């Protein structure tokens, strides 16, 4: 029996993950680590499953908040990125601002959002938005700004106007940059949401974890972490799949391997 190269690779990575959890479990048992310090993975998983009915609304809340913030961040990020990428002046003006903005720790912004909008979903959405926007802006701008001038010249010589050049060259050329940023941005949006939820909210995984930690229910806190990680992987996978569908051309090696 011979497995394909790809299957072997997948089996290897799955085996590594299993091994990681197994050694975690084993060290907890061998060194008799208190579950208040570090619970065993089996305990975390069973908590996750047993508490699922209670956790589910919070997971849903976090997911919805993240997606709303991410969607808004995507719209604003693409718009900003397009402006910055297509105009030299806008690039020069906006870049230092963007870098400064992205250097601000988002945890410092949450109290301000809470001050403006009260606690709840709104500051969480805004935090998710501000956390995920930077990679989108930078990638869209880079994709647009680095379009080969000769590709544009071919179309301009044909008499193409600005919008035709945009739709036929700039936009498809930027797609791989855009999707690469989406994969990163969607996980960052999670970070933003949970950050805000831990500070000021009464729903969401962040809130659950804060409450669990303060009542020393460490397995539940870890279950929250696991739920977050799983959601993150899920969303990353969704966007990776969309990327593969829309701009598989940018991934030529993989395509060769599959052919």
């Amino acid at each position, binding site marked *: 029996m011979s497995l394909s190269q790809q299957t072997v690779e997948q089996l290897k990575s799955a085996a590594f993950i299993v091994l990681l959890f197994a050694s975690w479990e084993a060290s907890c048992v061998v060194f008799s680590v208190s579950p208040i310090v570090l619970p065993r993975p089996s305990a975390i998983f069973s908590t996750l499953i047993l508490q699922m009915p209670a956790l589910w609304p919070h997971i849903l809340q976090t997911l919805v908040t993240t997606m709303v913030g991410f969607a808004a961040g995507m719209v604003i990020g693409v718009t900003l990125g397009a402006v910055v990428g297509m105009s030299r002046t806008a690039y020069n003006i906006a870049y230092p601002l963007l870098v400064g903005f992205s250097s601000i720790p988002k945890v410092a912004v949450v109290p301000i959002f809470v001050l403006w909008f009260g606690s709840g979903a709104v500051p969480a959405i805004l935090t998710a938005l501000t956390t995920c926007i930077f990679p989108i802006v930078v990638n869209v701008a880079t994709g647009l700004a680095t379009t*080969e001038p*000769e*590709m544009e*010249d*071919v*179309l*301009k*010589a*044909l*008499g*193409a106007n600005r919008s*035709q050049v945009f739709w*036929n*060259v700039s936009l*498809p*050329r930027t*797609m791989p940059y855009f999707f690469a940023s989406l994969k990163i941005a969607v996980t960052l949006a999670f970070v933003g949401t949970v950050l805000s939820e831990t500070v000021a909210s009464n729903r969401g995984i962040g809130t659950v974890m804060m409450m669990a930690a303060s009542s020393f229910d460490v397995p539940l806190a870890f279950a929250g972490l696991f739920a977050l990680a799983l959601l993150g992987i899920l969303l990353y996978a969704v966007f990776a799949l969309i990327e593969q569908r829309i*701009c598989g*051309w*940018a991934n*030529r090696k993989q*395509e060769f391997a599959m052919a």
Partner: protein
Amino acid sequence: MTEPTLASEQPFAKVAQLENVQVRFGKGSNTFLALDRTNLTVRPGDFVAMVGPSGCGKSTILKLVAGLLRPTEGYVFVAGREVGSEKVGIGMAFQNPTMMPWLTIRENIMLPLKIVKPYADTFSRDKHTVFRDRAEALLTKVGLSGFGDRRPWELSGGMLQRANLCRALIHSPKLLMLDEPFGALDQFTREELWSVLQELWMDTKPTVFLVTHDLREAAFLASRILVMSARPGRVTDDRSVGFARPRTLETTFEPAFAALTNDLRRMIVEARKA
């Protein structure tokens, strides 16, 4: 009565015309003259090759006519109108094949039909029928039949340049701009593509501007050769090339061919010294 007729015929007598054109690059005190006082008239069906030392403004002329660059002084006319005032739909091919990697070879070749009128008006209707056949016919002509569904990175440099010629010609442009299209290819592929290009040109006789460093290429393909001086560029020699068509590789071994290329080489060497 004769006056209006003459005026309306004028655009057809000259496809492109440069009048006292100067191009200056740079800003402030850091400027240089790329092209100096250039006058040039090109008639329909001319196959003009431009040779000269590097940096002499050959590509600048090409970009002027294609409307990608504005002259600092003087006028550029294409089809009797000042360039840029009307969309002409010029075909263009560079040394870098610039095939869009997100499109198949056939979609790449059909791209001009999506832009240039009147084809653009019916593009969505005809792209699976008439236009597809048109692309396929061109692909067959350059020896790429069956490669239409491939992606650009699956093709070799020579094949990409063949596809590039198809894309430059699919909308039957009156003007074809070639900026060292075969510059990055090996000698054998290059000579093969000379014949391909000559054949394509003889089909529809567009007016061609060819920028090249290869004097044999210029002598093989062109019906007219312009020699340019070192920067600031000026046209120092303008001669027609009379070898019968279709020219073959045998033509390049004729004494007259060798004499022509030697002559061109001598002029360019002098231009470099000056």
